């Protein structure tokens, strides 16, 4: 457990680290989903380095908060956060998507400490999060369950089954975040399958709804703190984000939903992100050893 609480600027630094890893890992792997990983980087940094109660030296700690990455294709962001938290060595990040690596293309809870749910087929994480919260209630534990949903993902009907159940069972220990980057594989969400008014939908399903800029660290922290005070209903934070956020040429660029940057693009991207003095002394170098 970290006793020292990271400041907003330090958390922004952590988010930069995650972005650096996301670009470096996917470029090294030659495949993956950098766009939706980059859009979630600030939220995941806030969770792992400030909001969540967890202990990397004891991943099975019963009282830990849980994080379910329902949009499993953002695995690089999760893996980066786990490595930065100290669940495993950075070296493992170089192995993303390789046959002998526990860093599977989508998260596998049986292979990697810190991964709370196996995901990848979309729409299933909120149900799992609800089950974790129900177990916590039975065990009289006060842990929270954070679950990150993609906006394209909520096309899936199961999400709304789970939304109904979360509200029915008054699961106020469940805090969902909708990574509202407005793009899915086939295009803009509003063209593929219109979601709006998405906040009204969640409200109608009985959820407490917060809307924020998902790249504004102060707003993210404030939203989580508000969500933690809600009683008797689950909360969803609708985080307005940008797909590919952090590398200018990747932003809003659908090519990077499911394709990795090549080595040249990686260098450009890393150059844009590594603006911090501390980045110069970072021991993690991409591309990793092949």
């Amino acid at each position, binding site marked *: 457990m970290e006793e020292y609480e990271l400041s907003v600027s330090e958390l922004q630094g952590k988010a930069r680290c995650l972005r650096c890893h996301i670009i470096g890992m996917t470029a090294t792997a030659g495949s993956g989903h950098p766009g939706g990983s980059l859009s979630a980087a600030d939220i995941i940094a806030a969770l792992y380095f400030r909001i969540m109660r967890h202990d990397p030296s004891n991943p099975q700690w019963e009282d830990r908060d849980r994080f379910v990455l329902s949009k499993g294709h953002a695995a690089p962001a999760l893996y980066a956060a786990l490595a930065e938290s100290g669940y495993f060595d950075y070296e493992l990040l170089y192995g993303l998507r390789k046959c002998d690596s526990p860093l599977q293309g989508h998260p596998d809870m049986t292979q990697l400490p810190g991964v709370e*749910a196996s995901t990848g*087929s979309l729409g299933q994480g*909120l149900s799992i999060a609800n*089950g974790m919260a129900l177990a916590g209630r039975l065990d009289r534990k006060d842990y929270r369950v954070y679950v990150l949903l993609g906006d394209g993902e909520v096309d899936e009907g199961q999400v709304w*089954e789970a939304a*109904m159940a979360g509200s029915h069972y008054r699961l106020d220990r469940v805090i969902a975040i909708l990574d509202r980057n407005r793009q899915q594989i086939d295009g803009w969400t509003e063209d593929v399958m219109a979601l709006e008014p998405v906040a009204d939908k969640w409200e109608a399903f009985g959820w407490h709804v917060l809307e924020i800029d998902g790249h504004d660290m102060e707003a993210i922290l404030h939203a989580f703190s508000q969500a933690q005070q809600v009683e008797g209903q689950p909360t969803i934070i609708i985080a307005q984000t940008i797909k590919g956020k952090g590398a200018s040429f990747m932003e809003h660029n659908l090519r990077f939903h499911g394709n990795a940057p090549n080595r040249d693009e990686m260098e450009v991207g890393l150059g844009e992100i590594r603006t911090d003095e501390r980045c110069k002394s970072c021991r993690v170098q991409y591309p990793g050893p092949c």
Partner: protein
Amino acid sequence: MTPLLSARDAYGRTLLELGRENEDIVVLDADLSDSTRTSLFAARFPERHFEMGIAEANMIGTAAGLASCGKMPFASTFAVFATCRAFDQLRMSVAYPKLNVKVVATHGGITVGEDGASHHAIEDIALACALPNFVVIVPADAKATEKAVDAIARHVGPVYMRLTRLAVPVVYEQSCDFTIGKAVTVRDGKDVTIIANGIMLSSALEAAAVLGQDGISARVLDMHTVKPMDEVAVEKAARETGAIVTAEEHLLHGGMGSIVARTVLEKAPVPMRFIGIRDRYARSGKPEQLLEMHGLTAPSIAHTVRELLAQG
């Protein structure tokens, strides 16, 4: 006349007993707790019973979350919804992460009867067997169901168990020695082996009795665990009796018989025949009419055995 006992009732009673012993057992339903008999558990342990409404996908996902936090969820609904409706959830959220979820489905097969093909689970065993890490069980009667429920609660990992709507003929009058993955020799014989499970086991025994009168000695195996299959018992049957007929209330494609056939072919090839549903849906009707229409009867098994031995 063989007495009939409900396997569903046996499930509900056993689950209630287990609930008293093990506080980690939780139960989930999809608006059918009365039919699945989990209502017994729900009445006694309301705080450990979760009604999920008509939303099977969410029910299975929620069960996975409960299991990941140390609970042992029993999720129940009709077999057709448990497997066909929630297949991806069984795969992604339960099978792949090897979570300790027990899916106990009632209303398997065509003996659901009058509700018709929409409610006849004839694909469920093939689907469940297609999932790595899953154990798949089809008990033959009420006593075997009690034992099976007890056994799956002691097994760590995903299980699919199929029960029937109808009360089923008693096969095990006293007790039965139920071990997951171990077939039971219900009747010994040397000329042929009939491998059956579920409601077809009593028909297989009936067929064996009739064949016995004609001097044909049929061994009958209860293949209650379809996966992992008892390959030793299958190989032994092939080597010692030289011919095998399988009988199941399920599609032949991907059912128990097809797994027996693969085992036989790999271990000790012998002539085989298969009793089951042949690539079509049934219809509304009385259960016994439907069984007759699809040849899932003792005379049909006996006839198939004779034909096989005559050709062999």
